Protein backbone atom coordinates (compact mmCIF):
# COMPACT_ATOMS: atom_id res chain seq x y z
CA UNK A 1 0.00 0.00 0.00
CA UNK A 2 1.83 3.03 -1.28
CA UNK A 3 0.63 6.37 0.09
CA UNK A 4 3.45 8.48 -1.33
CA UNK A 5 2.74 10.34 -4.57
CA UNK A 6 5.34 12.09 -6.72
CA UNK A 7 3.49 15.41 -6.97
CA UNK A 8 0.48 17.36 -5.78
CA UNK A 9 -1.16 16.85 -9.19
CA UNK A 10 -0.83 13.07 -8.98
CA UNK A 11 -2.05 13.05 -5.38
CA UNK A 12 -5.27 14.78 -6.45
CA UNK A 13 -5.79 12.41 -9.36
CA UNK A 14 -9.25 10.86 -9.52
CA UNK A 15 -10.60 12.82 -6.56
CA UNK A 16 -11.74 16.08 -8.11
CA UNK A 17 -15.16 17.10 -9.39
CA UNK A 18 -16.90 20.42 -9.87
CA UNK A 19 -19.01 21.44 -6.89
CA UNK A 20 -17.05 19.35 -4.40
CA UNK A 21 -16.34 20.30 -0.78
CA UNK A 22 -12.77 20.72 0.38
CA UNK A 23 -11.53 21.16 3.96
CA UNK A 24 -8.23 22.99 4.13
CA UNK A 25 -5.82 23.35 7.04
CA UNK A 26 -3.82 26.41 8.02
CA UNK A 27 -4.34 29.61 9.97
CA UNK A 28 -3.63 32.77 8.01
CA UNK A 29 -0.60 31.77 5.93
CA UNK A 30 0.76 29.55 8.72
CA UNK A 31 0.72 25.87 7.79
CA UNK A 32 -1.24 26.16 4.56
CA UNK A 33 -1.08 23.38 1.94
CA UNK A 34 0.52 25.53 -0.77
CA UNK A 35 1.43 22.80 -3.24
CA UNK A 36 -2.05 21.31 -3.15
CA UNK A 37 -3.68 24.72 -3.57
CA UNK A 38 -1.47 25.36 -6.62
CA UNK A 39 -2.48 21.98 -8.03
CA UNK A 40 -6.17 22.78 -7.48
CA UNK A 41 -5.68 26.03 -9.38
CA UNK A 42 -4.00 24.16 -12.23
CA UNK A 43 -6.74 21.50 -12.29
CA UNK A 44 -9.34 24.08 -13.33
CA UNK A 45 -11.93 22.51 -11.02
CA UNK A 46 -14.73 24.92 -10.16
CA UNK A 47 -17.71 25.72 -7.90
CA UNK A 48 -15.78 24.61 -4.84
CA UNK A 49 -17.09 24.88 -1.32
CA UNK A 50 -14.05 25.38 0.90
CA UNK A 51 -14.08 25.02 4.68
CA UNK A 52 -11.02 26.87 5.92
CA UNK A 53 -10.53 29.26 8.81
CA UNK A 54 -9.26 31.98 6.46
CA UNK A 55 -9.39 32.66 2.75
CA UNK A 56 -5.73 33.45 2.26
CA UNK A 57 -4.58 36.90 1.23
CA UNK A 58 -4.36 38.34 -2.28
CA UNK A 59 -2.32 35.92 -4.40
CA UNK A 60 -1.31 33.77 -1.43
CA UNK A 61 -2.92 30.59 -0.14
CA UNK A 62 -6.60 30.22 -0.99
CA UNK A 63 -6.38 33.73 -2.44
CA UNK A 64 -5.05 32.02 -5.57
CA UNK A 65 -8.24 29.97 -5.95
CA UNK A 66 -10.30 33.09 -5.34
CA UNK A 67 -8.49 35.00 -8.04
CA UNK A 68 -9.34 32.30 -10.57
CA UNK A 69 -12.99 32.26 -9.32
CA UNK A 70 -12.91 28.54 -8.59
CA UNK A 71 -14.55 28.97 -5.20
CA UNK A 72 -18.32 29.26 -4.95
CA UNK A 73 -18.59 29.31 -1.18
CA UNK A 74 -16.31 29.73 1.82
CA UNK A 75 -16.99 28.42 5.35
CA UNK A 76 -14.63 30.53 7.44
CA UNK A 77 -14.27 32.53 10.61
CA UNK A 78 -12.21 35.43 9.27
CA UNK A 79 -11.57 36.65 5.73
CA UNK A 80 -9.90 40.03 6.25
CA UNK A 81 -6.78 41.23 4.47
CA UNK A 82 -8.09 40.04 1.10
CA UNK A 83 -9.09 42.64 -1.47
CA UNK A 84 -10.14 40.13 -4.13
CA UNK A 85 -12.42 38.35 -1.68
CA UNK A 86 -13.92 41.69 -0.69
CA UNK A 87 -14.55 42.59 -4.33
CA UNK A 88 -16.23 39.24 -5.13
CA UNK A 89 -18.26 39.38 -1.94
CA UNK A 90 -19.55 42.90 -2.53
CA UNK A 91 -20.34 41.97 -6.15
CA UNK A 92 -22.32 38.94 -4.93
CA UNK A 93 -19.99 36.56 -6.79
CA UNK A 94 -19.08 34.46 -3.78
CA UNK A 95 -20.99 33.10 -0.84
CA UNK A 96 -19.63 33.12 2.70
CA UNK A 97 -20.84 31.23 5.74
CA UNK A 98 -19.23 32.74 8.81
CA UNK A 99 -18.57 30.29 11.64
CA UNK A 100 -17.07 31.18 15.00
CA UNK A 101 -13.50 29.91 14.89
CA UNK A 102 -13.97 27.30 17.62
CA UNK A 103 -17.24 26.15 16.14
CA UNK A 104 -15.54 25.64 12.77
CA UNK A 105 -12.69 23.64 14.33
CA UNK A 106 -15.13 21.53 16.32
CA UNK A 107 -17.38 20.98 13.30
CA UNK A 108 -14.40 19.52 11.43
CA UNK A 109 -13.38 17.35 14.36
CA UNK A 110 -16.98 16.17 14.83
CA UNK A 111 -17.36 15.31 11.15
CA UNK A 112 -14.20 13.24 11.34
CA UNK A 113 -15.30 11.53 14.55
CA UNK A 114 -18.76 10.40 13.40
CA UNK A 115 -20.61 13.09 15.31
CA UNK A 116 -23.26 14.69 13.06
CA UNK A 117 -24.18 17.39 15.56
CA UNK A 118 -23.17 18.92 18.89
CA UNK A 119 -24.38 21.69 21.14
CA UNK A 120 -22.42 24.82 21.97
CA UNK A 121 -23.01 28.07 23.82
CA UNK A 122 -20.93 29.95 21.25
CA UNK A 123 -23.11 32.31 19.23
CA UNK A 124 -26.26 32.02 21.32
CA UNK A 125 -28.19 35.29 21.02
CA UNK A 126 -26.27 36.36 17.89
CA UNK A 127 -26.81 36.15 14.13
CA UNK A 128 -24.94 32.83 14.21
CA UNK A 129 -27.81 31.24 16.13
CA UNK A 130 -30.50 32.26 13.66
CA UNK A 131 -32.33 29.27 12.21
CA UNK A 132 -30.47 26.81 14.41
CA UNK A 133 -32.07 24.46 16.93
CA UNK A 134 -31.87 25.81 20.50
CA UNK A 135 -31.84 23.47 23.46
CA UNK A 136 -31.54 23.85 27.22
CA UNK A 137 -29.08 21.81 29.26
CA UNK A 138 -29.03 22.39 33.02
CA UNK A 139 -30.77 25.73 32.66
CA UNK A 140 -28.47 27.15 29.98
CA UNK A 141 -29.28 27.62 26.31
CA UNK A 142 -27.12 26.06 23.59
CA UNK A 143 -27.38 25.81 19.81
CA UNK A 144 -26.95 22.78 17.59
CA UNK A 145 -24.02 22.86 15.18
CA UNK A 146 -23.38 20.24 12.49
CA UNK A 147 -20.30 18.15 11.85
CA UNK A 148 -18.58 18.88 8.53
CA UNK A 149 -17.56 16.12 6.14
CA UNK A 150 -15.47 17.08 3.14
CA UNK A 151 -14.91 15.16 -0.07
CA UNK A 152 -11.21 15.87 0.22
CA UNK A 153 -9.04 17.37 2.96
CA UNK A 154 -5.82 19.14 2.08
CA UNK A 155 -3.30 19.72 4.83
CA UNK A 156 0.30 20.71 5.43
CA UNK A 157 2.51 18.82 7.88
CA UNK A 158 6.11 19.03 8.95
CA UNK A 159 7.38 15.44 8.87
CA UNK A 160 5.58 12.24 7.98
CA UNK A 161 6.81 8.70 7.93
CA UNK A 162 6.22 6.58 4.85
CA UNK A 163 3.15 4.96 6.45
CA UNK A 164 1.49 8.37 6.91
CA UNK A 165 2.12 9.08 10.59
CA UNK A 166 2.55 12.82 10.72
CA UNK A 167 3.88 15.60 12.95
CA UNK A 168 3.29 19.31 12.79
CA UNK A 169 5.68 22.05 13.87
CA UNK A 170 4.73 24.75 16.42
CA UNK A 171 1.55 26.69 15.57
CA UNK A 172 1.12 25.04 12.15
CA UNK A 173 -0.96 22.28 13.76
CA UNK A 174 -3.98 24.64 13.97
CA UNK A 175 -6.79 23.56 11.62
CA UNK A 176 -4.62 21.01 9.84
CA UNK A 177 -5.39 18.32 12.38
CA UNK A 178 -9.19 18.64 12.53
CA UNK A 179 -9.39 19.23 8.75
CA UNK A 180 -7.41 16.03 8.12
CA UNK A 181 -9.92 13.92 10.02
CA UNK A 182 -13.05 15.20 8.27
CA UNK A 183 -12.17 14.39 4.67
CA UNK A 184 -13.33 11.22 2.95
CA UNK A 185 -9.83 11.34 1.53
CA UNK A 186 -7.04 13.32 3.20
CA UNK A 187 -4.00 14.46 1.25
CA UNK A 188 -1.04 15.74 3.23
CA UNK A 189 1.95 17.66 1.94
CA UNK A 190 4.99 17.69 4.21
CA UNK A 191 8.47 19.12 4.36
CA UNK A 192 10.11 15.72 4.74
CA UNK A 193 9.14 12.07 4.44
CA UNK A 194 11.09 9.80 6.78
CA UNK A 195 11.34 6.03 7.21
CA UNK A 196 8.79 4.20 9.37
CA UNK A 197 10.11 4.11 12.92
CA UNK A 198 11.81 7.51 12.66
CA UNK A 199 9.07 9.36 14.53
CA UNK A 200 8.52 8.82 18.25
CA UNK A 201 5.19 6.91 18.38
CA UNK A 202 4.27 8.96 21.48
CA UNK A 203 4.75 12.18 19.48
CA UNK A 204 2.75 11.43 16.33
CA UNK A 205 0.09 14.14 16.02
CA UNK A 206 -1.91 12.61 13.19
CA UNK A 207 -1.93 8.79 13.10
CA UNK A 208 -1.43 7.25 9.65
CA UNK A 209 -5.06 6.15 9.38
CA UNK A 210 -6.03 9.76 8.72
CA UNK A 211 -3.51 10.28 5.89
CA UNK A 212 -4.53 8.64 2.61
CA UNK A 213 -2.08 10.30 0.25
CA UNK A 214 1.21 11.98 0.95
CA UNK A 215 3.63 14.21 -0.94
CA UNK A 216 6.96 15.80 -0.16
CA UNK A 217 6.31 19.45 -1.03
CA UNK A 218 9.75 20.80 -0.16
CA UNK A 219 11.41 23.22 -0.50
CA UNK A 220 9.06 25.71 1.16
CA UNK A 221 9.47 29.45 1.09
CA UNK A 222 7.14 30.21 3.99
CA UNK A 223 5.36 33.55 3.96
CA UNK A 224 4.70 35.70 7.01
CA UNK A 225 1.56 37.82 7.22
CA UNK A 226 2.68 40.22 9.99
CA UNK A 227 6.38 40.20 10.73
CA UNK A 228 6.68 41.60 14.25
CA UNK A 229 10.05 41.77 16.00
CA UNK A 230 11.68 43.34 19.02
CA UNK A 231 15.02 45.08 19.34
CA UNK A 232 17.88 43.45 21.11
CA UNK A 233 18.77 45.33 24.29
CA UNK A 234 22.13 47.11 24.00
CA UNK A 235 24.87 44.95 25.50
Amino acid at each position, binding site marked *: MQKIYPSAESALDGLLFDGMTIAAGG*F*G*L*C*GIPERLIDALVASGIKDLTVAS*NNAGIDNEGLGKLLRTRQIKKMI*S*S*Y*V*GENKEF*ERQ*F*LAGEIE*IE*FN*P*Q*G*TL*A*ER*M*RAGGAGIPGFY*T*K*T*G*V*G*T*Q*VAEGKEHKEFDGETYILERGIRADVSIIKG*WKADETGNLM*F*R*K*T*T*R*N*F*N*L*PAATCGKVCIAEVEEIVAAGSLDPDCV*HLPSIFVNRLIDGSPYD*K*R*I*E*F*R*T*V*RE*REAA
Partner: protein
Amino acid sequence: MATTVETKGWTRNDMAARAAKELRDGYYVNLGIGIPTLVANNIPPGLTVTLQSENGMLGIGPFPYDDEVDPDLINAGKQTVSQLPQTSYFDSATSFGMIRGGHIDLAVLGGMEVSEDGDLANWMVPGKMIKGMGGAMDLVAGVKKIIVVMEHVSKNGAAKFIPECTLPLTGKNVVDMIITDLAVFQRPDHDSPFKLIELASGVTKEEVREKTTANYVD
Protein backbone atom coordinates in the same frame (compact mmCIF):
# COMPACT_ATOMS: atom_id res chain seq x y z
CA MET B 1 3.84 56.25 28.29
CA ALA B 2 3.19 58.73 31.11
CA THR B 3 0.13 60.91 31.01
CA THR B 4 0.86 64.61 30.77
CA VAL B 5 -0.68 66.96 33.30
CA GLU B 6 -3.17 68.34 30.78
CA THR B 7 -4.47 64.89 29.77
CA LYS B 8 -7.76 63.93 31.29
CA GLY B 9 -8.57 60.24 31.42
CA TRP B 10 -6.41 57.25 30.57
CA THR B 11 -4.15 56.50 27.65
CA ARG B 12 -4.38 53.20 25.81
CA ASN B 13 -1.55 51.88 27.92
CA ASP B 14 -3.19 53.10 31.13
CA MET B 15 -6.29 51.13 30.17
CA ALA B 16 -4.21 48.03 29.55
CA ALA B 17 -2.44 48.53 32.86
CA ARG B 18 -5.80 48.81 34.61
CA ALA B 19 -6.92 45.55 32.98
CA ALA B 20 -3.65 43.94 34.10
CA LYS B 21 -4.62 44.66 37.71
CA GLU B 22 -7.29 41.98 37.30
CA LEU B 23 -4.67 39.30 36.72
CA ARG B 24 -4.07 36.77 39.48
CA ASP B 25 -1.21 34.38 40.01
CA GLY B 26 -1.59 31.24 37.89
CA TYR B 27 -4.13 32.72 35.49
CA TYR B 28 -4.44 31.51 31.92
CA VAL B 29 -5.37 34.51 29.82
CA ASN B 30 -6.40 35.30 26.26
CA LEU B 31 -5.73 38.80 24.98
CA GLY B 32 -7.51 40.27 21.96
CA ILE B 33 -5.98 42.45 19.27
CA GLY B 34 -5.34 46.18 19.89
CA ILE B 35 -5.30 47.65 23.40
CA PRO B 36 -5.74 44.19 25.01
CA THR B 37 -2.39 43.13 23.53
CA LEU B 38 -0.74 45.84 25.65
CA VAL B 39 -1.84 44.01 28.81
CA ALA B 40 1.07 41.63 28.23
CA ASN B 41 3.52 44.48 28.93
CA ASN B 42 1.80 45.31 32.20
CA ILE B 43 1.73 42.01 34.05
CA PRO B 44 2.46 42.81 37.73
CA PRO B 45 5.85 41.47 38.84
CA GLY B 46 5.78 38.20 40.75
CA LEU B 47 2.69 36.88 39.02
CA THR B 48 2.86 33.83 36.78
CA VAL B 49 0.42 34.45 33.95
CA THR B 50 0.24 32.18 30.92
CA LEU B 51 -1.04 33.67 27.69
CA GLN B 52 -3.11 31.56 25.31
CA SER B 53 -3.30 32.07 21.60
CA GLU B 54 -6.45 30.54 20.14
CA ASN B 55 -4.72 29.26 17.00
CA GLY B 56 -3.05 26.67 19.25
CA MET B 57 -0.44 27.81 21.75
CA LEU B 58 -0.09 28.24 25.49
CA GLY B 59 2.77 30.36 26.80
CA ILE B 60 3.17 33.13 24.22
CA GLY B 61 6.55 34.80 24.41
CA PRO B 62 7.45 38.33 23.23
CA PHE B 63 7.99 39.26 19.58
CA PRO B 64 11.12 37.45 18.34
CA TYR B 65 14.45 39.07 17.61
CA ASP B 66 14.91 39.82 13.95
CA ASP B 67 17.08 36.76 13.36
CA GLU B 68 14.76 34.42 15.26
CA VAL B 69 11.56 35.07 13.33
CA ASP B 70 9.81 31.77 12.53
CA PRO B 71 6.90 31.64 10.05
CA ASP B 72 5.62 28.53 11.85
CA LEU B 73 5.22 30.45 15.10
CA ILE B 74 2.49 33.08 15.11
CA ASN B 75 -0.21 34.32 17.46
CA ALA B 76 -3.93 34.64 16.76
CA GLY B 77 -3.29 38.08 15.27
CA LYS B 78 -0.97 36.36 12.76
CA GLN B 79 2.03 38.19 14.21
CA THR B 80 5.33 36.37 14.69
CA VAL B 81 5.97 35.57 18.37
CA SER B 82 8.45 33.52 20.40
CA GLN B 83 8.38 30.44 22.58
CA LEU B 84 8.90 30.19 26.36
CA PRO B 85 10.05 27.27 28.55
CA GLN B 86 6.41 26.56 29.51
CA THR B 87 5.10 26.71 25.92
CA SER B 88 2.99 23.95 24.43
CA TYR B 89 1.36 23.67 21.00
CA PHE B 90 -1.93 22.01 20.05
CA ASP B 91 -4.55 22.04 17.32
CA SER B 92 -7.42 24.51 17.00
CA ALA B 93 -10.12 22.05 18.12
CA THR B 94 -8.20 21.40 21.34
CA SER B 95 -7.56 25.13 21.71
CA PHE B 96 -11.24 26.00 21.56
CA GLY B 97 -11.99 23.05 23.83
CA MET B 98 -9.96 24.96 26.43
CA ILE B 99 -11.85 28.15 25.67
CA ARG B 100 -15.38 26.75 25.41
CA GLY B 101 -14.82 24.40 28.34
CA GLY B 102 -14.14 27.25 30.74
CA HIS B 103 -10.46 26.53 31.31
CA ILE B 104 -9.31 30.09 30.48
CA ASP B 105 -9.56 32.40 33.49
CA LEU B 106 -9.74 35.75 31.77
CA ALA B 107 -10.06 37.31 28.33
CA VAL B 108 -9.47 40.96 27.56
CA LEU B 109 -11.17 42.08 24.37
CA GLY B 110 -11.88 45.26 22.45
CA GLY B 111 -15.43 46.46 21.96
CA MET B 112 -17.56 48.65 19.71
CA GLU B 113 -20.59 48.65 22.01
CA VAL B 114 -21.48 47.14 25.38
CA SER B 115 -25.06 47.13 26.61
CA GLU B 116 -26.15 47.65 30.20
CA ASP B 117 -27.07 43.93 30.29
CA GLY B 118 -23.53 42.96 29.31
CA ASP B 119 -24.11 42.27 25.63
CA LEU B 120 -21.04 42.85 23.49
CA ALA B 121 -20.82 43.97 19.87
CA ASN B 122 -17.36 43.95 18.37
CA TRP B 123 -17.33 42.05 15.10
CA MET B 124 -19.31 43.75 12.35
CA VAL B 125 -20.87 46.97 11.17
CA PRO B 126 -23.80 46.49 8.77
CA GLY B 127 -23.07 47.98 5.37
CA LYS B 128 -19.31 47.66 5.82
CA MET B 129 -17.23 44.74 4.62
CA ILE B 130 -17.60 41.89 7.11
CA LYS B 131 -14.30 40.25 7.95
CA GLY B 132 -15.70 37.66 10.35
CA MET B 133 -15.86 37.04 14.06
CA GLY B 134 -12.72 34.91 14.34
CA GLY B 135 -12.58 33.47 17.85
CA ALA B 136 -14.40 36.32 19.62
CA MET B 137 -17.77 34.57 19.98
CA ASP B 138 -16.11 31.46 21.41
CA LEU B 139 -14.11 33.52 23.88
CA VAL B 140 -17.08 35.48 25.25
CA ALA B 141 -19.15 32.28 25.48
CA GLY B 142 -16.53 30.20 27.27
CA VAL B 143 -14.00 32.22 29.24
CA LYS B 144 -14.67 32.65 32.97
CA LYS B 145 -14.26 36.44 33.07
CA ILE B 146 -14.59 38.89 30.19
CA ILE B 147 -13.10 42.37 30.35
CA VAL B 148 -13.87 44.78 27.52
CA VAL B 149 -11.42 47.61 27.00
CA MET B 150 -12.63 50.44 24.75
CA GLU B 151 -12.78 54.20 24.34
CA HIS B 152 -15.67 55.60 26.33
CA VAL B 153 -17.22 57.32 23.30
CA SER B 154 -16.92 56.87 19.55
CA LYS B 155 -15.06 59.24 17.26
CA ASN B 156 -18.36 61.05 16.77
CA GLY B 157 -18.76 61.43 20.50
CA ALA B 158 -21.54 58.84 20.78
CA ALA B 159 -21.76 56.71 23.90
CA LYS B 160 -20.53 53.11 23.53
CA PHE B 161 -21.82 51.84 26.89
CA ILE B 162 -25.50 52.00 26.02
CA PRO B 163 -28.92 50.59 27.00
CA GLU B 164 -29.02 48.17 24.09
CA CYS B 165 -26.51 47.39 21.36
CA THR B 166 -27.35 48.68 17.90
CA LEU B 167 -24.71 46.54 16.16
CA PRO B 168 -24.94 42.76 15.68
CA LEU B 169 -23.90 40.97 18.86
CA THR B 170 -20.77 38.97 19.55
CA GLY B 171 -22.34 37.61 22.72
CA LYS B 172 -25.38 38.17 24.88
CA ASN B 173 -24.93 38.92 28.58
CA VAL B 174 -21.23 38.04 28.59
CA VAL B 175 -19.27 41.09 29.82
CA ASP B 176 -18.06 41.22 33.44
CA MET B 177 -16.03 44.43 33.39
CA ILE B 178 -15.67 47.47 31.15
CA ILE B 179 -12.53 49.59 31.17
CA THR B 180 -12.67 52.82 29.18
CA ASP B 181 -10.39 55.85 29.04
CA LEU B 182 -12.70 57.46 31.62
CA ALA B 183 -13.86 54.80 34.05
CA VAL B 184 -14.20 51.20 35.14
CA PHE B 185 -17.53 49.39 35.44
CA GLN B 186 -17.96 46.00 37.00
CA ARG B 187 -20.68 43.57 37.99
CA PRO B 188 -20.38 40.60 40.34
CA ASP B 189 -22.49 38.27 38.20
CA HIS B 190 -24.55 38.23 35.01
CA ASP B 191 -27.83 39.05 36.80
CA SER B 192 -26.58 42.26 38.43
CA PRO B 193 -26.29 45.75 36.96
CA PHE B 194 -22.89 47.28 36.25
CA LYS B 195 -21.44 49.55 38.93
CA LEU B 196 -19.04 52.42 38.37
CA ILE B 197 -16.10 51.37 40.53
CA GLU B 198 -13.27 53.63 39.42
CA LEU B 199 -12.64 56.94 37.66
CA ALA B 200 -9.66 57.76 35.48
CA SER B 201 -7.43 60.62 36.60
CA GLY B 202 -9.19 63.98 36.44
CA VAL B 203 -12.55 62.48 35.47
CA THR B 204 -15.69 63.13 37.47
CA LYS B 205 -18.75 60.94 38.08
CA GLU B 206 -20.83 63.60 36.37
CA GLU B 207 -18.72 63.51 33.20
CA VAL B 208 -19.04 59.72 33.06
CA ARG B 209 -22.79 59.95 33.58
CA GLU B 210 -23.04 62.52 30.80
CA LYS B 211 -21.13 60.37 28.29
CA THR B 212 -22.95 57.13 29.10
CA THR B 213 -26.47 56.21 28.06
CA ALA B 214 -26.48 52.79 29.78
CA ASN B 215 -28.05 52.48 33.21
CA TYR B 216 -25.49 51.66 35.89
CA VAL B 217 -25.04 52.06 39.62
CA ASP B 218 -22.78 54.84 40.90
